[in-house]
Structure formats: structure tokens, C-alpha cells
């Protein structure tokens, strides 16, 4: 089942009234959507607000989603429109238009790179997460590190990774899983702290 198929399954469940299915889509796309929005909204807390608002709008518009484009492409469009409305209502304008191309090669009209203005707390949390993940990746045994890197950074399929690493696909699947578990174990204390603090 491809990534798009998984999203489609979750969308159909949400369309049948399963709000928890929509929650999985939020968990999956919130960071990517926030990064997209950060290209034309400077303030970190505004980015979070607009991200949140975009998901609510997407939920309300679910009955009109017909699967003609990928869910994230559709979501990104909603995000961009929400951001434009936000900037317009706040009397601000995106700085300079530029083209942004998503993973499907679709272009979006966007503002140019805008430096982030995260709150110090958010900035610190971003850095802590990235540092923890990177350190955990570096501490992995080489075969786990290679497998997870080929998957997450290079986007290779299990079959391709199996060819590169000269091992069975089942081994690739196991290595990637063990890598994720090892990294998640390092992240957990940080996320628990953050949950108590903010989430």
C-alpha cells in the first residue's frame, strides 16, 4: 500500500466520521505543513495557529475531497490559502512571490524564504529534537544507520535498500524498525518533558 493509498484510507475513514483517522493525518503532516507555511509567515506562534486552522478547514472540507490529487497536495493548498487569508486580515503581505514545487511536481505560488521567528522556547525544542535524533542516529550500529538513512533521507524502497545492502527485504524491514525504536527511545524523555511543559 503506497503512501498515497494510506492517506486515502485515512481520509475515507475520516469522511465516514472517524475523527481519530484524521488525527493520524494531523500527526503525519503537521510538521511538513508548518515548514511550508514558514516560507511566508515569520512568527513561530502564528505558524502554529495557521497550521491548526488549516487542519480545521481541511476537516470541514473533507466531503469535497475527491482523491483527484494526493491528500497532502490538497492540504498544502488549503494551508497556503489559510496563510494568505491570515496575512491579509493582519494587513500583511507575503514578501516576494516565488514558486514552490511539491513532491508531485505541482507548483504553488509562495513567498520567498522568510527567516523563522520562532519563540526561544520553540527554537530550543526544535534544536533539542534535531540534536537528539542526530545523536541517536550516529550511535546506531552501522547497518541500522545505513538502512534508516537510505529510507528517510534518500527515500529508497525496501527492495532498493535490500539491493544496496545486499540482504533480504525482511532484514531491511527489521533494521529500519529497530533503528526507529532506538531513536524513539532517546526522544521519549524529551517529548514527555515537552508534553508536560507545553502540549
Amino acid at each position, binding site marked *: *500500500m503506497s503512501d498515497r493509498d494510506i492517506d486515502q484510507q485515512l481520509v475515507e475513514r475520516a*469522511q465516514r466520521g472517524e475523527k*481519530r483517522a484524521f488525527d493520524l493525518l494531523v500527526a503525519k503532516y*503537521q510538521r511538513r505543513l508548518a515548514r511550508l507555511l514558514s516560507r511566508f509567515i515569520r512568527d513561530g506562534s502564528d505558524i502554529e495557529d495557521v497550521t491548526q486552522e488549516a487542519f480545521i478547514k481541511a476537516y470541514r472540507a473533507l466531503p469535497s475531497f475527491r482523491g483527484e490529487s494526493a491528500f497532502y497536495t490538497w492540504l498544502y493548498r488549503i494551508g497556503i490559502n489559510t496563510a494568505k487569508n491570515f496575512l491579509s486580515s493582519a494587513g500583511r503581505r507575503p514578501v516576494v512571490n516565488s514558486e514552490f514545487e511539491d513532491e508531485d511536481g505541482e507548483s504553488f505560488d509562495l513567498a520567498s524564504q522568510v527567516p523563522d521567528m520562532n519563540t526561544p522556547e520553540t527554537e530550543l525544542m526544535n534544536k533539542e529534537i534535531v540534536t537528539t535524533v542526530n545523536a541517536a542516529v550516529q550511535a546506531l550500529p552501522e547497518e541500522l544507520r545505513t538502512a534508516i538513512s537510505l529510507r528517510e533521507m534518500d527515500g529508497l524502497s525496501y527492495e532498493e535498500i535490500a539491493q544496496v545492502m545486499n540482504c533480504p527485504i525482511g532484514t531491511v524491514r527489521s533494521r529500519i524498525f529497530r533503528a526507529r525504536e532506538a531513536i524513539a527511545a532517546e526522544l521519549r524523555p524529551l517529548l514527555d518533558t515537552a508534553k508536560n511543559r507545553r502540549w
Partner: protein
Amino acid sequence: MKEKLSALMDGELDGQHAQRAINAIADEEELKQVWDAYHMIGDAMRANSHVAVNVRQQVAERLANEPTVLAPRRWFAPVRTRRAGAVALAASVSFAAVVGWQQLSHGNGASVMADRGVPVAALQPVQQHDDLYLAAHQEMTADQSVYKVSYGNGVRH
């Protein structure tokens, strides 16, 4: 189940296994946390500078006050139906191909009908050009050896 979840998010789980994994994630809060954490790991590895963003709780709280979305099922035939349709189509095409091949493979011999004992009075190549219509359209047929067949007691059609 966590290993299946990991494979699922990589698009490496098929059919019923994928369905079961999705059900489990939707049902169990712990697996939802794992789903979230695994995606966060991927985002952090790809240097997303907004890995700390977490609006799940706020969105869930707001959605709790939203009327439940109930979209009519219309635009998407269930996968099973589409598969069944594809199988039926493939079977039809195969059947037509086999029948067509059988017909063509009897090019110079007696027809299938004749084999079955139906009286065939005449079997004449069109090359004789005594039938103007067939002669005129002969070039438009896939098989240049078009035959006229008369059934019955020698009555020409």
C-alpha cells in the same frame, strides 16, 4: 505491531495487513504516539526546522466541537469492486481473443459451423470479385483472406 506500523508508513505493507495496522493505530493511543514519533524522526532527519510543532491536541479539541463529517460514498468504488471489474474485463478480453484466434485459425479450412455439421453450401474466396461490396471493402479487413460463407442449400447471400 510496531514493526508493522513502521513498514506501513514506508508503504511496504499490503492489503489486509495494512488494513489491520491502520485499525490498530486508530484504536490504540500508544500506537498513535509511536506513529507520531516515527514521523517526527523522519522529519528531523530531513532537517525540518519545525519538528517541535505539535497541534494535534488543539486540533482534536476543536474537532470535538465540530459536527462529524459524513461524506457520501460516491467517487471511489471500493478496491475489491474495482479489482473484480478488472478481472471480469480481463476475462472478457481473453475470451474474445481466444474466440477470434480460433476463427482466424480456420482461414482456409471449413468453418467452425461446418465442423459442427451445419450445412455449408459454398466457401469462396472474395478474390473472384463477383461480389462488389466485399471486393470493395476487402482491403479494410485485418485478414485479407475474407471469405463469403453461405448457409443452407446453396443460397447465395
